[in-house]
């Protein structure tokens, strides 16, 4: 380990402002959901403030990094930090995959009279378990009338996201070899693919509501569908924003061949989002 000179920044106003901004988002969203529209301005201000603070905070970090204040140990701190952050995201999705697994393996068969808790069927004599669940136990809840074929848009989206991981890797290799233009082009391609994915997902949601009857209220199928694809989609949007800002830095010539952790962190995040999608494609769409 290198001795000394671990950079400890002087005081910063971004953390406390970021906390307040996050608080504003939460208070605004809560007010919107519970008391009505009065929450909207608070929430919007909070969102803009978070974006602004994050921009300024990262600007400081980038500035420090480019001034050569960071040593190898700082680089390792960032790596540990990003790695464990992604692990926490993995666990967030694990809760949702666990939900899907539990509902399909236990809850629905039990309601249909099978398995250790099958006596529950006494309450739902007309219910038949199936997946996708088109007819929820309570007839008052209108289930979906049709579900998506995995081999149309979802497959297209899978191919898009997998290729985007490949294009990103090519961009990274380019950066490592010092081919800046290659990196820039392939990164631009990645951003475009991410945007396509979001657009297609948006179109699919529109279809779900207007033609398929897949809604949040359509029983457990709609609920898990939107929970999982929705949070994944949110992560794709965030990932795309990150990649765009990285692209901006590539264009400005920020990264060197052997020192470009921001690029790598963004790539890690993007690959993680990709892997989650493959899980979703398998368990939400195909099986």
């Amino acid at each position: 380990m290198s001795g000394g000179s671990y950079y400890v920044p002087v005081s910063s106003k971004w953390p406390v402002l970021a906390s307040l901004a996050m608080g504003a988002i939460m208070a605004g969203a809560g007010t919107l959901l519970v008391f009505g529209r009065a929450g909207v301005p608070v929430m919007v201000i909070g969102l803009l403030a978070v974006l602004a603070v994050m921009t300024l905070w990262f600007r400081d970090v980038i500035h420090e990094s480019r001034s050569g204040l960071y040593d190898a140990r700082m680089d390792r701190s960032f790596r540990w930090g990003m790695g464990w952050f992604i692990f926490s995201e993995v666990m967030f999705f694990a809760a949702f995959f666990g939900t899907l697994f539990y509902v399909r393996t236990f809850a629905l068969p039990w309601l249909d009279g099978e398995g250790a808790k099958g006596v529950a069927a006494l309450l739902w004599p007309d219910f038949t378990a199936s997946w996708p669940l088109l007819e929820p136990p309570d007839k008052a809840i209108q289930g979906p009338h049709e579900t998506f074929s995995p081999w149309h848009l979802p497959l297209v989206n899978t191919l898009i996201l997998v290729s985007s991981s490949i294009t990103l890797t090519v961009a990274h290799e380019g950066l490592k070899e010092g081919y800046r233009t290659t990196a820039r082009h392939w990164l631009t391609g990645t951003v475009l693919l991410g945007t396509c994915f979001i657009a297609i997902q948006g179109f699919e949601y529109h279809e779900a509501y207007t033609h398929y009857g897949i809604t949040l209220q359509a029983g457990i199928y709609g609920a898990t569908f939107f929970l999982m694809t929705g949070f994944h989609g949110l992560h794709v949007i965030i990932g795309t924003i990150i990649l765009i800002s990285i692209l901006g830095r590539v264009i400005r010539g920020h990264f060197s061949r052997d020192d470009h952790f921001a690029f790598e962190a963004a790539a890690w995040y993007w690959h993680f989002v990709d892997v989650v999608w493959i899980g979703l494609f398998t368990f939400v769409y195909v099986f």
Partner: protein
Amino acid sequence: MRMRLVRTAVGMALTGPFEVVLANGWNMPVGVTDLSRDIHTLHMVIFWICVVIGIVVFGAIFYSLFRYRRSRGAKASHFHEHTTVEVIWTVIPLLILVAMAIPATATLRDMYDASEADMDVLITGQQWRWRYEYRGEDVAFISSLATPREQIEGQAAKGEHYLREVDQPLVLPVDRKVRLLMTSDDVIHSWWVPDLGVKQDAMPGYINENWVRINEPGTYRGQCAELCGRDHAFMPVVVEAVEPEQFDSWLAERKAAAAEAAMGLDREWGLDELMERGEQVYGTICASCHQPDGGGSPPTFPALAGNQALMDDRERHIETVINGVSGAPMPAFRNTLDPVEIAAVITYERNAWGNETGDSVQPSAIAERIAD
């Protein structure tokens, strides 16, 4: 069977010294079923294991604290590892645990074996009362707290069975295996009678099984064990265990009474008699949420008094009481109340507290709707 004898003997040996304490209600009751006895035995065995370990460990601590005080001139030695000792105190607890797991597993298997029951009782938790249905017998009733409000609020002396008394207890026969099916109409409740060794959560939309075979006639008291909202503390369970013959004649009586009640469907009911019956039903069923004066507690429980939208829409009123409101606390009463009660309570709500619609709802109409 031999296993059980052994377990009972062990149980008696262990509880012996605690006879006095038991009598004073400081310990888990032995109870009146084989299972409650087994559970009690397990409880006492693990308790004494803990006591013995506790004496050894705490003895060692206090000995060290006394013997190796610096004020007594103790000089610290510097050992800090001893593999043999460490292996020993890993293995011995492991063996104790295995020894403990064997009888626990046996008892658990017994508890889960609800097969070959002589009769089924469906227990439904509702905020904040229990409904008991003797399946296949057409007998069902609601059992709610009988302790007067004045006792709770301190305006009257508290009775012997304060908060543990109900208007109609669950009557069960001794020496018969009764399968208990538990469910709930609203939130999670938990049906618990310590003397029977039964505590089982009542989950909305699902059914849990348990069973009981009571050995001695008597009255056994318990209460809801899972936080279920405001009146969670006021949701007692009372079981009256009687001899089988007595139970059979009780059940026959209840059946006859139920048949009689059903007869009310044939005739036209007058507004006054509906109001009278309705007030009674409202008081035991609806008032806990919608308040005795119909004021409700908004936003969760809407007011009924002066609720013009509801008064203008008689259909919706009937629909709401029969089928409940999906996604809101209002349960469906189609299986909980009989048509006479539903008709009466709707009539009452539409004419009480200044809601003078003059409407009366006929039991026969309700019965038809439910049958659809």
